[in-house]
């Protein structure tokens, strides 16, 4: 194995240490990943933009900073792929939509600024469902991403590009965003680790809003420790985001290291009765989940059953709240200040040009959700739909708050089914929505959750989801790391070689 091949097989923590000690350089590692992207991304299509020379230049700058003795974090010099929904100054940012085609943001998202400040190198922007609406990347305006485990199957969504990039070793680290499961579900179906931090734990400034009260950025990686290290880089209070929590980032890296010892004595894990009763979970997924729970017990955890009676209403509530907020958040894309303008032939009035622009610029799923949200907020329907969904949100929050009085964390499958073939769920929008069945509750109550690979079903990865109370992100990292410690080799390292 050449030095360059070796770089793409190491964990981010290992790469950071090797760069820090001078064993290798950020530029060398960055070139290795760019080579890898060049070799396999034609088949995977995880990236919408590859930074190329700009990434190498940034890596060389980091190498200079390290050589000058600047004290950078443990991931300094390590490349990272960023979901194309976070603004990057001077680098294309499209949210996988035609409406932002060609837009160069004049500012960096806070998450991106923190990556750069900590010496991480932005490799490029990853593919996703348009404006993060979807569970398969089939709704990207620029074509889907393929799952490295089976190129005929979806990589999950919306953040399928970030997960596939990490699974295919095109990036050691990636940033995703999660509104209803868009970090965790892709993580589960690609055999990678995906964590949604506590809402307010990571700044949303520069995250192109889909649903403001649910969106949260987080790490996508191959190991739990890498996720925790990346979480610590991007987390923490940001005065530019009013919903940002002004408190220290939970000690997640320490928790991941502690969990890696494999001892969960004293940890109480809850299994939600209603999750298990819900229809639609594949038998292979259920089997892998049961095996994972058995492993947790073996590691010393106490597993108990808890009840969240309003669980069944979480999905419908989500599909009212998220579209409602999105209908308002996406109103700004009107062809006046940036992005696409369509139909301006010099004779048409503004209102018509705006409507033609939005019609041409948005894909079918985005339009569907905008209209659904417009409906749910409109006079006469607000109370029955949006207003009622917000009350259900209160009840779901109460259920989970009560559950966390009994247990430290909750465990569930991340998603009811393994990666499905392209086209199998696009005809029926509600069939696609089921992918988020188990991930949505934590977005509604704002708590953190992580998906960690826990086995295979029909040769495809299955994820275990660990949910924790608000600002107790460290707990889920500990449990996830403990489970990961029982796998040799790790599932992420079993990804089949992609043949271009």
């Amino acid at each position, binding site marked *: 194995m050449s030095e360059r091949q070796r770089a793409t097989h190491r964990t981010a923590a290992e790469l950071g240490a090797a760069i820090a000690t001078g064993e290798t350089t950020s530029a060398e590692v960055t070139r290795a990943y760019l080579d890898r992207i060049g070799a396999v991304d034609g088949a995977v299509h995880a990236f919408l933009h590859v930074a190329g020379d700009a990434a190498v230049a940034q890596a060389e700058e980091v190498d200079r900073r390290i050589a000058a003795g600047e004290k950078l974090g443990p991931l300094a010099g390590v490349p990272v792929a960023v979901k194309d929904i976070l603004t990057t100054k001077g680098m294309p940012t499209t*949210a996988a939509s035609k409406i932002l085609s060609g837009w160069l943001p004049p500012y960096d*998202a806070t998450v991106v600024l923190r990556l750069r400040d900590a010496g991480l190198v932005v490799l490029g922007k990853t593919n996703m469902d348009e404006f993060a609406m979807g569970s398969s990347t089939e709704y990207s305006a620029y074509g889907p991403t393929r799952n490295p485990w089976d190129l005929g199957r979806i990589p999950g969504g919306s953040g399928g590009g970030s997960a596939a990039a990490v699974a295919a070793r095109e990036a050691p680290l990636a940033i995703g965003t999660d509104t209803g499961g868009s970090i965790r579900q892709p993580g589960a179906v690609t055999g990678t680790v995906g964590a949604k931090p506590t809402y307010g734990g990571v700044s949303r*400034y*520069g995250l*192109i809003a889909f649903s403001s*009260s649910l969106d949260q950025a987080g790490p996508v990686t191959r190991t739990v420790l890498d996720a925790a290290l990346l979480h610590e880089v991007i987390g923490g209070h940001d*005065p530019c*985001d009013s919903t940002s929590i002004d408190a220290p980032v939970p000690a997640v890296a320490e928790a991941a290291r502690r969990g890696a010892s494999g001892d969960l004595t004293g940890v109480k894990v809850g299994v939600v009765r209603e999750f298990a009763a819900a229809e639609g979970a594949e038998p292979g997924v259920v089997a892998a989940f049961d095996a994972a729970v058995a492993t947790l017990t073996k590691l010393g955890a106490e597993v108990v059953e808890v009840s969240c009676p309003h669980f069944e209403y979480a999905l419908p509530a989500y599909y009212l709240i998220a579209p409602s907020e999105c209908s308002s958040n996406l*109103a700004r894309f009107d062809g006046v200040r*940036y992005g696409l303008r369509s139909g301006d032939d010099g004779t048409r009035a503004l209102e018509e040009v705006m409507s033609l622009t939005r019609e041409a610029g948005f894909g079918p799923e985005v339009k569907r959700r905008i209209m659904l949200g417009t409906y749910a907020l409109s006079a006469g329907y607000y109370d029955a739909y949006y207003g009622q969904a917000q009350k259900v949100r209160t009840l779901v929050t109460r259920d989970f708050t009560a559950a966390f009085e009994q247990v430290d964390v909750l465990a569930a499958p991340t998603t009811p089914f393994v990666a499905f073939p392209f086209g199998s769920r696009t005809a029926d929008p509600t069939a696609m929505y089921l992918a988020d069945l188990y991930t949505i509750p934590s977005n509604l109550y704002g708590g953190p959750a992580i998906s960690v690979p826990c086995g295979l079903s029909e040769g495809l990865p299955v994820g275990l989801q660990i949910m924790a109370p608000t600002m107790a992100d460290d707990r889920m990292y500990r449990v996830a790391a403990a489970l990961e410690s029982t796998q040799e080799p790790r599932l992420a390292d079993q990804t089949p070689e992609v043949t271009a």
Partner: protein
Amino acid sequence: MSTASTATGELADVLSRYEVVLGLEVHVELGTRTKMFCSCPTVFGAEPNTQICPVCLGLPGALPVVNAVGVESAIRIGLALDCSIAEWCRFARKNYFYPDMPKNFQTSQYDEPICFDGALDVDVDGKTVRIGIERAHMEEDTGKSTHVGGATGRIHGATHSLVDFNRAGIPLVEIVTKPIVGTGADAPAVARAYVAAIRDIVRALGVSDARMDQGSVRADVNVSLMPIGASEFGTRTETKNVNSLRSVERTVRYEMVRQAQILDDGGVIVQETRHFNEATGETVGGRTKETATDYRYFPEPDLVPVAPDPAWVAELRAALPELPAAKRTRLRAEWGLSELDMQAIDNAGAFELIEATVAAGAGPESARKWWLGELSRHANEAGVELSELSVTPAHVAELQSLVDGGRLNDKLARGVLAGVLAGEGTPTEVMTARGVEVVSDTGALTTAVDEAIAANPDVAEKVRSGKVAAAGVLVGAVMKTTRGQADAKTVRELILGRLGVQ
């Protein structure tokens, strides 16, 4: 004025059949240093699109953060209007598309205003009218469109428009009255007095420069009529962005007469947005919308609730400055004026001007004399408010000090004032430039006096013999030779002294 009496006659006719109901929404642009939800500066008149950032330009990913002084100002306005202050309230998004609104929603407040349920007393012709305040809430201003290709910048007929976002996001407090009923023929004056009172209060609070000419205070005027004795309000029209006190008054008057004519003819009033045309004095309807606007308000998820600490609110209440109504009572006593005098001052819109003139050193009586006399005459002739004249209280105080110091007499002072109004400079500058100073050089005056005595020996003899009144002829002669630039009193003393009758 004949037009005014005709209008009054029309109004009396309207009121013989209908009762008028008013509703006023006054938008106050706060004088904060930065915008409501971002740190962009708010300087008036800056070059287009030079005071913008990702937040107020509505760039993808940008997020708002509330300006603490914006909240404080809103609370202080509420306290001054005797409102309750919400213990907990949220911002809301008002969703509609318009090119000068970057996010295509306005961040505002909906059913949880920060201030609610207040009252304000206004005086109209000695009567006190209590105006109920429904609410005062925080929101943001929009950008500004310039229409190109049509007639004189009108939206109608334009080929395209150009948008400047400097004003987008500037903090506004919108103050909404409860329905104002029972004002009858005073309705136009009540509307005007209310807007003036709001303007004076926010200025006294120091939360806004309250420049109506720059749009920092503007009113939406709702007017409806209902048959006398009816219990249900009629359909209202809303005339938007009326930006002078005079226009507020004219809008109410015009709408009352217009609506009455439609109702008399058996027509129905269309609920619509109208615009006041300063040039014609008429309101003009916009396009009637086929469907009612549906703003789809919902709580702004990007901003967290505002929950003012009651102790902080109490501090703000204790620190409120003297409000205009209290100040009026105090100054009336200090100035030694009757209520009738004060009403004349109020009607002329001269209270603050006189106050400032007194503060600049003039006596109350002379300040009042200038503003209600000479300056009111000029304002009437020009058809503008006193405050719109180019003369300032400092000018008036300076002018009066020149009179008091004997350098100008009344007649000269009026001429100098005309020069100030014509933009020729300060009173002293005008006086110097025109060379109209009172001749106080006694040598020169004595020569003129001696010449006058020599030219009128009979008159001089009469004076010497004790007919002092005859000295007027000699004074007149001296004034003539000095082209009026002498102080008549000094001249008279000199003549009497010269003729030995002191």
